[in-house]
């Protein structure tokens, strides 16, 4: 989306133009929804979180400072909302499978690879679910939104060096989790999830090395 066009919509929306705001919602629903989905791990909760995020964006529109990137501002509101929601969450949530048509088209993916896509989504969800929230958030912002250290720092209210080390620790935590699961330290019956992750751990790492490089969201 062109920055100038976006700024026009933002200014119009600030003046109360709902049509302009609808355009902003259209433009940002995919990034916000995917951030929420990856943070919360459940598609239905992600929809609710996306709605709440946009309502917050709408009510705080007057406080938006145009010198800031609008996308960073929106993602920061979404991140804060998801973290709050995770803190309020009680008990475990059950994972639901997402229908295959819900996946957005990936040029590098043949139609028959949809099953692989689902399998990969499950692995990612399992891995992310084991990460503490701050680590999960930086991984999502780095890989799903392809943001720089500076932008991630702005969104998470921290410094670039903090983001660097947090990303590093997040990767270490993922690796440790996979290795830990691989060593089979937990009996199969007790930790079914980890066991299934263990079976796939090495294969996941191998497969991910062969995958082509990413494009921004």
């Amino acid at each position, binding site marked *: 989306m062109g920055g100038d066009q976006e700024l026009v919509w933002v200014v119009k929306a600030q003046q109360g133009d709902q049509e302009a705001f609808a355009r902003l*919602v259209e433009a940002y629903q995919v990034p916000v929804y995917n951030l929420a989905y990856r943070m919360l791990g459940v598609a239905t909760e992600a929809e609710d979180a996306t709605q709440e995020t946009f309502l917050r964006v709408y009510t705080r529109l007057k406080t938006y400072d145009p010198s800031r990137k609008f996308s960073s501002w929106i993602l920061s509101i979404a991140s804060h909302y998801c973290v709050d929601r995770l803190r309020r969450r009680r008990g475990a949530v059950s994972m639901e499978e997402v229908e295959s048509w819900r996946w957005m088209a990936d040029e590098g993916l043949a139609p028959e690879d949809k099953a692989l896509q689902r399998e990969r989504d499950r692995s990612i969800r399992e891995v992310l679910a084991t990460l503490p929230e701050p680590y999960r958030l930086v991984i999502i912002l780095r890989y799903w939104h392809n943001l720089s250290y500076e932008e991630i720092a702005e969104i998470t209210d921290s410094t670039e060096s903090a983001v660097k080390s947090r990303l590093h620790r997040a990767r270490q935590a993922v690796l440790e989790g996979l290795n830990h699961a691989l060593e089979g330290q937990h009996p199969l019956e007790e930790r079914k999830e980890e066991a299934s992750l263990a079976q796939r751990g090495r294969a996941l790492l191998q*497969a991910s090395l062969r995958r082509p490089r990413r494009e921004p969201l």
Partner: protein
Amino acid sequence: MNRPHEEISQQISLALDGALSLEEERQLRAHLQECPACATLWEEMRGVSGLFERPPLLAPPPLLAARVMRRIERRERWRAWMRRLAVSLLVLILLAMVLAIPLMGLSTLAVNHPALSQAVFRALVRAAEIAQALWLGLGILARAFLGRGEWLILAVWLVLAVAAGVGWMRLLRRARRIVAR
């Protein structure tokens, strides 16, 4: 096998983000060739990073944006009504205050000067009588012109009712337009 070096581990992460300078990258590569532990970590960390590269994107539900906008519209409508209610209440309170002061003054005046209040009352009665006389006069005139007074009165009432109805509809439409905006 030895443990990988902690500072190299951090460098590996930066390299994965493309945040190293050429010189730093060269140094890292040189170290990886010498240190098998760090070389293994590099491969593993690349695997972790690759797990998230080109991540699958989920399409939002088809009506998500529309639902957001509906919620915003509802919110705005509610706020508009609240605003109107607040303004009406304010106007009512102000009116009551404005009316209360002269009424209070009048009531003390009436108590202190009974003759004056009687005069005012008589004037009001006279005014009512004049209005009644005018109304009767109109009736007589109408009957003189049309022969049947009841029809004329009915017609006047009809015109008045239609005018009031149209006015009310206009007011409603205007209110709706404001709400929609």
